């Protein structure tokens, strides 16, 4: 579904990602692992058009590298950014509507909103509250729902479990696995390697902006390098 070849992302003189290549098969959950600063977020930002990059990014055979973020989301890629980044002074309703505004109109927008409220019942309870007043977990669900409002075929998730209570983390990972069964392809960046590899079909490990290791979720979970570095023994 998504092929990345020779991707590099530079911020001024600093190279965050250098000549990275990987693929995301259709219908899979693919996870990018790595330490802080390994280039995971930069990779997602490059794919979604937020970070300027070199190299090839190919979605279903079409080159999308260099397109602005407004175009890339129209091609069916949605990014749920790190730190949730909901619009705090807007209501839950307005956050959702903005997520779908250019992708659906009128009844279609209403039915998508309804579908997301069914998926995240807590958002129905908070529907008219300002997003900034929600708890961290609720904000993460809102950010997910808002990204899903564009009906993406490929969902990029940047650290969805960051800073959340273990119970909420369980919920989020269940949701992500559920999205795959609905046919949404997922590229997941996570610090929580153990949980991420449990649901992942494929994984890639980044080190200093380059690929260090790759394999199926199970292979990586059992690899000594991963166990040592991320899974504490």
């Amino acid at each position, binding site marked *: 579904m998504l092929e990345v070849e020779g991707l590099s992302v530079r911020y001024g003189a600093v190279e965050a990602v250098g000549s990275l290549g990987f693929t995301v098969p259709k219908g899979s959950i693919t996870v990018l692992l790595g330490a802080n600063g390994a280039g995971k977020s930069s990779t997602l930002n490059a794919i979604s058009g937020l970070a300027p990059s070199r190299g090839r990014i190919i979605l279903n055979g079409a080159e999308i590298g260099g397109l602005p973020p407004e175009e890339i989301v129209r091609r069916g890629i949605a990014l749920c950014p790190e730190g949730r980044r909901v619009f705090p002074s807007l209501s839950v309703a*307005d956050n959702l509507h903005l997520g779908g505004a250019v992708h659906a109109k009128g009844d279609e927008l209403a039915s998508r909103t309804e579908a997301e409220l069914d998926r995240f019942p807590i958002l129905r309870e908070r529907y008219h509250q300002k997003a900034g007043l929600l708890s961290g977990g609720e904000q993460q669900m809102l950010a997910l729902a808002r990204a899903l409002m564009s009906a993406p075929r490929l969902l990029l998730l940047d650290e969805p479990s960051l800073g959340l209570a273990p119970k909420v983390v369980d919920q989020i990972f269940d949701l992500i696995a559920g999205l795959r069964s609905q046919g949404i392809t997922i590229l997941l960046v996570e610090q929580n390697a153990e949980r991420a590899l449990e649901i992942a079909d494929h994984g890639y490990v980044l080190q200093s902006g380059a690929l260090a290791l790759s394999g199926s979720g199970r292979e990586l979970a059992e690899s000594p390098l991963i166990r040592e570095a991320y899974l504490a023994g």
Partner: protein
Amino acid sequence: MEFFLQQLLNAVSLGGIYALLALGLAVVFSIVALINFAHGELMTVAGYVLFVCILYAVPLPIAVVAAIGAAAVAAAATERLAFRPMRRADPTSLMLTSFAVSAILKVLFQNGISARPKPVPLPPELSGTLTFGPVRLGTVPLASILVTCLSLAALTLFLKRTVMGKAMRAAAEDFQVLRLMGIRANRVIAAAFALSGMLAGISAALWVAQRGSVDPLMGFVPVLKAFVASVIGGLGSLSGAVAGGFALGIAEVLFQAYLPEAALPFRDAFVLGVVILILLWRPDGLIPAKTGRRS
């Protein structure tokens, strides 16, 4: 009693004009971090359109709508021609660009129209006073307050109910994420400029109604006041702009009315003294903006 009511009316109507102007600055600043010092020249554009319309006996409501529309178009045009090419520049360069736009427009008015003021006579029904029991109040300030209230209500509806209005509020908080939703940055920015132009046009109509004339430099003083108002209110905060505008207008009129005659030449010093006190008390302004990430 009548004197106090009249002064209060003047204070609120002047405050309203400052509020609309400061809102115009704040709408743009909240989204692109530009303090648009060419905002005053948008007023001047509206003023001249009003002048021409009245010269050719166009009915007043149509003249006012045309003036507001012209200011909106002028604002969108300056965005497209001057500010969009500078989009990636730092705030200082953006501000200098706005000085350049302002200077160019002033020269165009001076050479293309006239350096001298042009009269904009009001229809007689607006120039009189209205009598409420024992109190007589000016029609212009009353109408001005009414227009300000209607404009604020319409703006609130726009920002809360329409997709573009919500997108502008979202852009002020996190422009990058808004683009991730597929909402085009250029469109939001152009709309913000057009909205700011409309606000300048409305303020211009009210300003000209009080002065009765337009000249190439008429936008300078109001934009300066609007800048002060938006700093008092909290730069980039929309409700702050309204609060700052009213605070400044009310302070100006009340000092004008109640300072002893010997102190009157120093009225602005007293007003700015109050501004300093407000900023000492609340350095980020009365209602600070929530800062966000910008594209």
